[in-house]
């Protein structure tokens, strides 16, 4: 399909959409002629169609809409009162406009319809001349066709129907029409509709009162009809709006001479339109319209939400399956459960992809407006620029397609204005006279990459720095510390502009800021590469979808946070020695770059108890053109998460983009990377500093009772034996019946436990599980877990070690042995 056809199609889609709304608006306008909003809306329709049709060289349509626009503009400004006369003409012109559009759709051109009489009337009304006088009463509509205007009214609704349905609808309308006719005949004393029209010239003979009365009567009829139509529309099931994919089956036979009666509303007399559903397929020689269904985006959003819930359920199922697998290892039913879980998870993933695909649009939709833009710009700037587009068929989410247009416009304008040089400069520097801008789109993993490459003069890092200093955007000191890439990033700062003067194209220092904001909103990244004299390449990397995202889960103490994977560049494990402090900010060297660091705990006010490991995990985050290293305690893994809003009460918390529900049913917050980068600038670094509390914990033991050990065993006898063995030490002893109870006591935090004696065989929660649970929490990292059990197998011991036990005591044991083991593990100070 060539470019023109595609634009034409968009134009038709848009126009029919507008007109559909227009019908409703006009009906409303009749009852509320003073409603400025309505008028504005109608005016905009005329304006939009005029603009587009002039671009597409539909002169007749442009001519007509231009005059309509004039008239509506007057009404809009209060220079013209919309009365029935004016309304007639407006309605007539709109019907004509519809006929023209249908014709364009069917034949690809707008000739063959006479618009001049209508235009003349529009002008006449606009000039305030009484209608009846200037325009000679034309011949009434040639041959009234037995379809009521209602057909035109409900036109758009047909599109969603099958042929049978259309047939049925026609029959229904004919029946309706006949009923109406009967009613009219009754009203007119037996006159047929044709008679109504024949009778029209008679209006001139009526007295003013009579005319008024007649108008009122007609309006009443009209309103009754409208009401009937409206109720009909209401009865129809909410068929998805499918126009114009299957175009409304109305082939226009244009009115030989549009009606000119002053009083009778146009639509009271049948417009000469035919319903020919059979022609539907063959008649569309002009522009084939794609076979698609237009669905309200709200429905897709709802569907997406439901899928989101399903994904959460799936995550949860997988988690439970893992737990069950661990506990009932080797049992036969596990196989079956595994299969079901994997099928559910597979189908859920497929379903999610399928729904995501329904929301996908080719990026060509955005790209297509650029060739013209480049043509205009190159003429304006006296440059020779060529645009090469590749990958316009690459698809991405609708919401992203909508957001990406503006940034691209700004980047391309920028490339034209600042990037590509004028022909003489290009020739002088040994380049071809004409510059080239390449616009590429392609997939890269879960991202789409849009690349804009020009072969212009490139970015000069030093020049950018000095300009920024001049404008007060950065200080000289900052400039010295900046790498080349960071300097390129300066073009995104608000207020930055390299243009010596403000032109119509650029120079206000707003555009690139818009680019950055929009791309950040989409969780995208910008990467600039440039070489002086050779050109600039700008890479926009944008996630494919927004509602369900891949996230990296990180832990800090016992809290977890989800970081959108789209913003994660890499993760590195470093030793604490590699963290340097420069001007009270922590930094590290990552290959040839210096990366500033911030601890996630400082951002989210996490109380850090222990921080004595020698290593740190750094998540390198990238957003738009900036980078930062986020230090976390642990990396949990990658998970598919569904973004949930925090609601009114908690919205707008800095650094948090939303929440998600994890497989275990808990809530985890999603990090807002853009905000986090902002916050990182003001956060004081505490990296590498051990928290005071952590020191206290280890040191403040002044008497034996400060040591605290928990005994976890389901047998009262065993507990008593252990208590008796340890009592001589004088330490605090707490007993728990099983794992669950032990965990609860621990979490309550009444005691700072130094050690725990754990039986393995216990109801509710066994010793291994308890140990694994406890080790999930960073603050219990130094809690000594000692297994006391009668299980003596090697495998049991191994499991004990795996789950985090430090000692393994087999029953029976001597009290002295137990005491010694405990003393050693809680670092009991004999001197107290």
């Amino acid at each position, binding site marked *: 399909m060539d470019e023109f056809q595609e634009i034409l199609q968009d134009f038709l889609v848009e126009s029919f959409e507008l007109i559909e709304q227009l019908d409703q608006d006009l009906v409303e306008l009749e009852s509320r002629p003073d409603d400025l909003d309505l008028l504005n809306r109608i005016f905009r329709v005329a304006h939009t169609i005029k603009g587009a049709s002039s671009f597409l060289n539909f002169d007749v349509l442009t001519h007509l809409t231009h005059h309509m626009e004039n008239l509506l503009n007057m009404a809009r400004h209060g220079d013209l009162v919309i009365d029935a006369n004016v309304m007639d003409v407006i309605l007539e012109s709109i019907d004509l406009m519809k006929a023209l559009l249908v014709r364009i759709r069917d034949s690809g051109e707008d000739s063959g319809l006479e618009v001049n009489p209508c235009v003349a009337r529009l002008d006449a009304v606009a000039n305030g001349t009484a209608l009846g006088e200037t325009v000679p009463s034309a011949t009434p509509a040639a041959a009234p066709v037995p379809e009521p205007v209602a057909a035109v009214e409900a036109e758009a609704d047909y599109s969603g129907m099958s042929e049978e349905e259309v047939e049925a609808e026609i029959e229904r309308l004919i029946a309706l029409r006949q009923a109406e006719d009967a009613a009219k005949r009754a009203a007119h004393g037996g006159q047929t509709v044709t008679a109504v029209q024949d009778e029209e010239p008679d209006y001139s003979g009526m007295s003013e009162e009579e005319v008024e009365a007649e108008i009122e009567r007609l309006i009443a009829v009209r309103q009754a009809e409208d009401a009937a139509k409206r109720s009909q529309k209401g009865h129809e099931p909410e068929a998805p709006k499918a126009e114009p994919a299957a175009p409304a089956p109305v082939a226009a036979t244009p009115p030989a001479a549009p009606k000119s009666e002053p009083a009778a509303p146009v639509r009271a007399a049948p417009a000469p339109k035919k319903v020919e559903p059979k022609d539907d397929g063959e008649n569309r020689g002009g522009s084939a319209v794609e076979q698609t269904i237009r669905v309200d985006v709200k429905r897709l959003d709802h569907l997406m939400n439901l899928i989101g819930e399903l994904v959460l359920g799936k995550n949860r199922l997988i988690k439970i399956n893992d737990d069950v697998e661990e506990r009932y290892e080797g049992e036969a039913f596990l196989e079956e459960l595994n299969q079901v879980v994997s099928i559910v998870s597979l189908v859920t993933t497929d379903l999610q992809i399928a729904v995501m695909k329904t929301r996908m649009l080719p990026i060509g939709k955005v790209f297509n407006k650029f060739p013209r833009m480049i043509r205009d710009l190159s003429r304006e700037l006296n440059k020779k620029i060529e645009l090469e587009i590749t990958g316009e068929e690459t698809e991405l989410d609708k919401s992203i397609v909508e957001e990406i247009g503006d940034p691209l416009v700004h980047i391309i304008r920028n490339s034209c204005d600042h990037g590509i040089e004028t022909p003489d400069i290009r020739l002088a520097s040994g380049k071809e006279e004409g510059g080239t801008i390449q616009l590429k789109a392609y997939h890269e993993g879960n991202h789409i990459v849009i690349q804009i490459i020009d072969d212009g003069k490139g970015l000069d890092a030093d020049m950018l720095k000095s300009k920024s200093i001049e404008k007060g955007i950065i200080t000289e000191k900052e400039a010295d510390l900046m790498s080349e890439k960071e300097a390129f990033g300066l073009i995104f700062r608000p207020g930055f502009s390299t243009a010596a003067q403000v032109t119509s194209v650029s120079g206000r220092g707003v555009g690139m800021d818009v680019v950055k904001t929009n791309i950040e909103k989409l969780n995208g990244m910008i990467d600039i590469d440039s070489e002086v004299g050779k050109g600039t390449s700008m890479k926009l990397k944008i996630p494919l979808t927004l509602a369900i995202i891949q996230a990296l889960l990180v832990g800090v103490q016992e809290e977890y946070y989800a970081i959108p994977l789209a913003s994660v560049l890499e993760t590195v494990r470093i030793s604490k020695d590699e963290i340097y402090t420069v001007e009270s900010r922590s930094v590290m060297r990552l290959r040839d770059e210096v990366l500033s660091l911030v601890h996630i705990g400082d*951002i989210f*006010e996490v109380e850090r108890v222990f921080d004595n490991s020698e290593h740190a995990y750094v998540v390198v985050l990238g957003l738009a053109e900036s980078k930062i290293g986020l230090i976390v305690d642990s990396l949990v893994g990658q998970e598919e998460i569904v973004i949930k809003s925090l609601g009114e009460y*908690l919205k707008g918390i800095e650094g948090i983009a939303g*929440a998600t529900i994890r497989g275990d049913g*808990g*809530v985890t917050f999603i990090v807002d990377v853009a905000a986090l980068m902002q916050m990182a600038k003001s956060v004081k670094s505490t990296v590498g500093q051990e928290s005071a509390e952590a020191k206290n914990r280890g040191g403040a033991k002044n008497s034996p009772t400060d040591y605290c050990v928990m005994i976890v065993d389901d047998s009262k006898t065993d507990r008593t034996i252990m208590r008796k063995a340890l009592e001589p030490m004088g330490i605090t002893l707490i007993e728990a019946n099983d794992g669950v109870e032990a965990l609860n006591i621990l979490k309550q935090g009444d005691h700072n436990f130094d050690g725990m004696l754990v039986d393995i065989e216990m109801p509710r929660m066994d010793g291994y599980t308890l140990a694994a649970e406890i080790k999930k929490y960073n603050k219990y990292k130094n809690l000594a877990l000692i297994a006391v059990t009668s299980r003596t197998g090697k495998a049991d011991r191994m499991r004990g070690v795996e789950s985090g036990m430090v000692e393994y005591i087999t029953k029976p044991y001597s009290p002295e042995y137990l005491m010694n083991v405990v003393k050693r593990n809680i670092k009991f100070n004999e001197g107290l």
Partner: protein
Amino acid sequence: MSEKLQQIINKQNKTLSGDDVKIDEVIQLVGFIVGDEEFSVPILSIQEIIKPISWTRVPQTPEYILGVFNLRGSVIPLIDLRSRFGLETMKHTEETRFIVMKNGDDVAGFVIDRLTEAIRLPKKDVGPAPDTIAEEESMIDGVGKQADRIITILKVGKLLERNF
């Protein structure tokens, strides 16, 4: 005849509207204890009452916001009424409950020490909040008087209003 009919209709109307007035006059409340005092909220503003479940801390919020919890797929804020009222926080006990209240679209869970009972209170027994509390700022809607005690009725709208 028609006069008689009119009289009957009038009479019926009277009893009908009279009944309405009676229903109107009683408000139904759910009472609960926070600290040493008994508070109550209208029963219709309560979505549900649940036993404590785990929650996630929210950074950068006042201390009385304990965090958020997952109520069948919705993320709902959890507010500790003890610290909201400036009382010392207490460990959750067997009797601790989360009352999930709603006002329009706003929903939040509130931690209370324990529930007391559902109360039916004639409207005439509800007095205004003490004058000493500024009208705008007050979380108190009124004070219900019963034979042996006084119950503070809270403004749910105010409780659910974000004030940080």
